[in-house]
């Protein structure tokens, strides 16, 4: 509606003095940014290699040396049936685990931030312990549990494990969102006669939804990527990371690089899209309300 830009939204004029001092940059001031950019380069080096070797025209079993450019792996990214089914197993186990752990973790966060109960401190310590626990220890402990009680290893045990190690991440992420919201909204709804369940679905959930979504994405990413714990409880079932790790002995086919590149591209699009959307909605909010945060 409003077309006039409020004064607060206009960029501040850079003081002349600051501009002058900035024009005389000492060489020592360049060391730190150079270092930071080198670190970023280091972080991207293996990603770059992964992408490039997806185009490698290799004919042997191993994909370690450059043999020319080809698109044939990109034409048939799902040409290896066992790899494709491993990727699908990864997707289904991780999605199931995410659904369960997002529900359970959100409930934990809700209890922690909206109620008082006995053992809250213990619960928080257990969550921290879970995050800090070594995967090798947790994986072997779970394996001894399943072996002791004769539980067959496979799809179900993978989901059980993935829910277990993603619950704390969900509880903490959703908890952070809950801590920043005003409980007065919920109290108002309850004063107007809404039951706690109705209040949750009509008020609390819409308010904390960005946090819940972020938590679910985090849980999904952690589950999809997990190698160590999953390898202990998978039995003969293969997930994507397990298949790739198993293939290292006989040589990893370039299709793995192709799938990796596709996942990376998807992740980048989601992350960049999310960031752009956020800054866009912040700007829209600023335009509509004439208010600018920071």
């Amino acid at each position: 509606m409003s077309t006039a830009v409020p004064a607060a939204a206009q960029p501040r004029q850079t003081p002349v003095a600051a501009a002058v001092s900035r024009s005389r940059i000492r060489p020592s001031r360049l060391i730190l940014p150079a270092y930071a950019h080198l670190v970023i380069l280091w972080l991207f080096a293996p990603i770059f290699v992964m992408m490039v070797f997806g185009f490698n025209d290799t004919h042997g079993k191993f994909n370690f040396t450059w043999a020319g450019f080809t698109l044939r792996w990109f034409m048939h990214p799902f040409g290896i049936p066992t790899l494709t089914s491993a990727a699908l197993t990864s997707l289904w186990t991780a999605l199931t685990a995410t659904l369960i752990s997002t529900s359970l973790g959100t409930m934990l966060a809700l209890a922690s931030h909206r109620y008082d109960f006995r053992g809250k401190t213990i619960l928080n310590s257990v969550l921290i312990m879970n995050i800090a626990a070594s995967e090798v220890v947790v994986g072997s402990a779970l394996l001894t549990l399943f072996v002791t009680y004769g539980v067959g290893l496979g799809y179900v045990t993978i989901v059980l494990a993935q829910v277990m190690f993603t619950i704390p991440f969900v509880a903490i992420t959703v908890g952070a969102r809950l801590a920043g919201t005003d409980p007065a909204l919920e109290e108002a709804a309850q004063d107007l006669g809404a039951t706690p369940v109705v209040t949750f679905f009509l008020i609390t959930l819409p308010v904390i939804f960005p946090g819940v979504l972020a938590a679910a994405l985090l849980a999904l990413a952690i589950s999809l990527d997990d190698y160590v714990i999953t390898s202990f409880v998978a039995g003969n079932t293969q997930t994507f990371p397990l298949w790739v790790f198993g293939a290292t002995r006989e040589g990893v086919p370039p299709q793995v690089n192709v799938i990796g590149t596709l996942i990376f591209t998807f992740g980048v699009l989601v992350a960049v899209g999310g960031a752009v959307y956020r800054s866009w909605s912040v700007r829209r909010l600023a335009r509509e309300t004439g208010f600018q945060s920071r």
Partner: protein
Amino acid sequence: MAVGTATVRRPALTTRWGRALAPYLLIFPGVAWLLIFFLFPLLTLAVTSLMSGDFVAGFQFTWNFNNYTYGLGLYATQYSHSLEYGASATLIAFLLAYPAAYWIAFHAGPRKSAYLLIILLPFFVSFVLRTLSWETLMGDDGPILGPLKSAHLIPSDFRVLATPIAVTFGLAYTFFPYMLLPIYASLEKIDRRLIEAAEDLFANRVEVFRRVIFPLSIPGVFAGVLLTGIPATADFVNQTLLGGAGTTMIGRVIEQQFEVSANYPLASALAFVFMLGLLAMLLLYQRLFGTDELVRAR
């Protein structure tokens, strides 16, 4: 049947009893899950570690402490490799992450979140795949060493793979975000007025950093050290792909004892000792710094 008075039936959960019960109902499924699949397995791990027997004939509980003495004696080298590589990787990750986090927090200006996102992007790629790429990159005739060798700048038998250096750098890379994020979080929330105050009191840049910024970032540094150090010490993927026969770490031994030798009691004893060591470190940390920082850092 109250006649005459307009009674509103209050839903069960808004009564006093309901209010007291609600949190327990909310936490029940999550707590049950963590009890059964996180805490209880640690007990079965301890019990299994005291068993004897073999996979074919079955294992019996016999208070077999031999697993511990035997295992510790046999794999002392692998335990020390784990500590050594884990500690070096943590140090390298710190040396790389701190300046980068510092620069982003204080000098990246409006592009702060963009830089943070860029730094996290590589970690969208599966961890096994990233490690595999390092294997390609550091390979004996790979994109770096290959050209150097054909130009005769380095001897042809020079190698990085299968050395502790490759393993250590692989570990530092894998767990880098766990170091950077807590450090960044603690630097970012430092009150800028404290820095201005120090400058007003004629502190130079080095002094501001040494006496104001660094001390205030220490909680983040310790959270980073913990979150990097624990997984780096236990990891066996980096060591398997980037290391050689002489660099075996305890995580690999435990995995092999479970998956290949099926010697569950010995493997459990090795894992349990490892867990006790880490727990001791964690308790020390909690004593010194509390757990608040750890929760917020994530």
